[in-house]
């Protein structure tokens, strides 16, 4: 087994596009088969509103947090072209964004439950870094022995969350736009505990085989459930997890 992996790696590294001509015969005499894959990669994307609200005036910078994704997928290939898959993944989803906002309703919450809410105008930095256990379920379409497409949904459980940041160089209006104006040099917020524990959404992607067992893969997961509950006042618009996983799939 070890030797085979080494051989595979050598083949991959040297050839890049190796030889699989003999596989064509399977198309005629296909037997349903279970396949196992290890999926590994990184998530790139954002926890963001779909369509920016007009209170966000400018995005100054954005970058992805270190967001690895590692999982296992079991698929059942019923025919040579069609099958289904279910997986379990550990997904980190994170980003950092620096932006400028105007009359942005938000809240400063304290651990003892007291809060100070109002409309903020100024600069903001938000860091999101959440970890989910994700169960993706897909229909799988395999048109040929290179490409493999999947489309389906996912359910995810949050097990570690952070959603925090700072507001600076601005002011907040206590209670709303006509409230007391309070100059903020710098203040922080932390909504990590307010996040919903469960996320559900659509996911789909494609894999392109580059080795005997190795494919490069991209998979987009689009959350359909706002990450904060409706009665949460810290953000007045719904935000969703929208992340693209880029990585590899290794068939075992």
């Amino acid at each position: 087994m070890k030797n085979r992996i080494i051989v595979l790696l050598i083949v991959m590294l040297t050839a890049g596009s190796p030889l699989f001509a003999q596989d064509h015969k399977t198309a005629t005499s296909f037997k349903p088969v279970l396949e196992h894959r290890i999926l590994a990669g990184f998530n790139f994307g954002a926890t963001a509103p779909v369509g920016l609200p007009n209170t966000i005036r400018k995005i100054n910078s954005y970058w992805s947090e270190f967001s690895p994704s590692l999982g296992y997928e079991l698929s059942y290939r019923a025919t040579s072209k069609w099958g289904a898959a279910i997986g379990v993944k550990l997904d980190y989803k994170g980003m950092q964004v620096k932006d400028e906002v105007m009359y942005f309703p938000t809240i400063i919450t304290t651990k003892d439950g007291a809060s100070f809410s109002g409309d903020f105008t100024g600069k903001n930095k938000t860091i999101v870094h959440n970890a989910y256990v994700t169960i993706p379920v897909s229909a799988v379409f395999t048109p040929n022995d290179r490409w493999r497409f999947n489309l389906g949904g996912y359910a995810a459980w949050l097990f570690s969350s952070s959603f925090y940041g700072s507001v600076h160089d601005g002011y907040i209006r206590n209670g709303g736009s006509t409230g007391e104006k309070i100059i903020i040099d710098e203040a922080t917020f932390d909504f990590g505990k307010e996040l919903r524990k469960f996320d559900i959404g659509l996911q789909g992607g494609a894999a392109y085989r580059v080795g005997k067992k190795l494919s490069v893969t991209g998979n987009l997961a689009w959350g359909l459930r706002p990450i904060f509950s409706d009665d949460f006042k810290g953000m007045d618009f719904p935000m969703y997890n929208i992340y693209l996983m880029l990585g590899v799939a290794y068939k075992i």
Partner: protein
Amino acid sequence: MKSRKLCWVAALAGSLCGCIKDAPLNPEADIESFTIDKSNLTGDVFIDQSKGRIRLYLTRTAYDSGVVPTIKITPGATITPASGDSLKFDSAGIKKYTVISPSGVNKKTYTIELVNIGNWKFDFEKWGIDKTFPEIPFETLEGEDGSAIWSSGNLGVGLAGVSNPKEFPLRSTTDAYQGKLAAELETRPGTELSMGFMNIYLFAGSLFMGNFDLGSAFQNPLKSTQFGQPYAGEPARFTGYYKYKPGPVFQDEKGNPVAGKTDECSIYAVLYTGTSRLDATNIFTSERIIATAVLPDGSAKADWTHFDIPFTFKKSYDPNVPMMMAIVASSSKDGNYYRGAVGSRLLLDNIEIVKK
């Protein structure tokens, strides 16, 4: 198939960095400044944004003949009556200003409040309710005519997220020396917000003559306590009654207990020149100070104790110079440095500035 993937990527990218929408119309409706010629004033105009009050401290002549203010509002907003309309203090005169935001949605009303202290004798019988934070209304001390002569750190404490009206450091008490009520000042523990963001571990109970400027509370809390009201005449003594019980554990500004130290209260009056107010950063150090009267003994007093402190003059008194008088009391002497003992309790009643 490849293009499908590209579509997704494009859709993703589009949703993230995509279209910044048109800026929202300004929903604010402020009177930002209210300027009156200095010669008409005995103290600087104070705009209490949280209550929508414009406090004027006028000379007798200005009161009789009226003034013409220059009003600066949120750019794009509208105000009625207009800036530049003269303000007369008779029954037909302007009492209120209404500002409408550029967005047209919000309206803010400001009431003109004349502050004039005729009698420098205070029995602390009249209390009102401050609704700056609607869900946590707290008590506020009022002047005889309901005007705002007195202020406290309560607003700042509210800002720091105290959620129970009973937990504000200044409130009334029925344990009075005379009459029904007296002022009670209690040093309170910091809130999660104040400790986490501002490194403030306690709030001393405070009561002072002047205004609390909430606007600078986050930036520089010591500047938000604006001490003093216009004063005329030469003061001789500062008198009153107090009770004091220090809290059990004295703590430093980082919240660490300090062994062997007992909290003390402070009560003082400061007379200074000018029309703009001193604050907690300079009330003892300003060059403008003429005279002070400071309670020498801030230790525990189980029963009502009389104080009668003569003013100590640092400069000679000049009746022709505009002056202000500050009266400040705190349940923790070093409360302005956030040092003291949680639970220290100062009761104050029937105080007076006695003229020569």
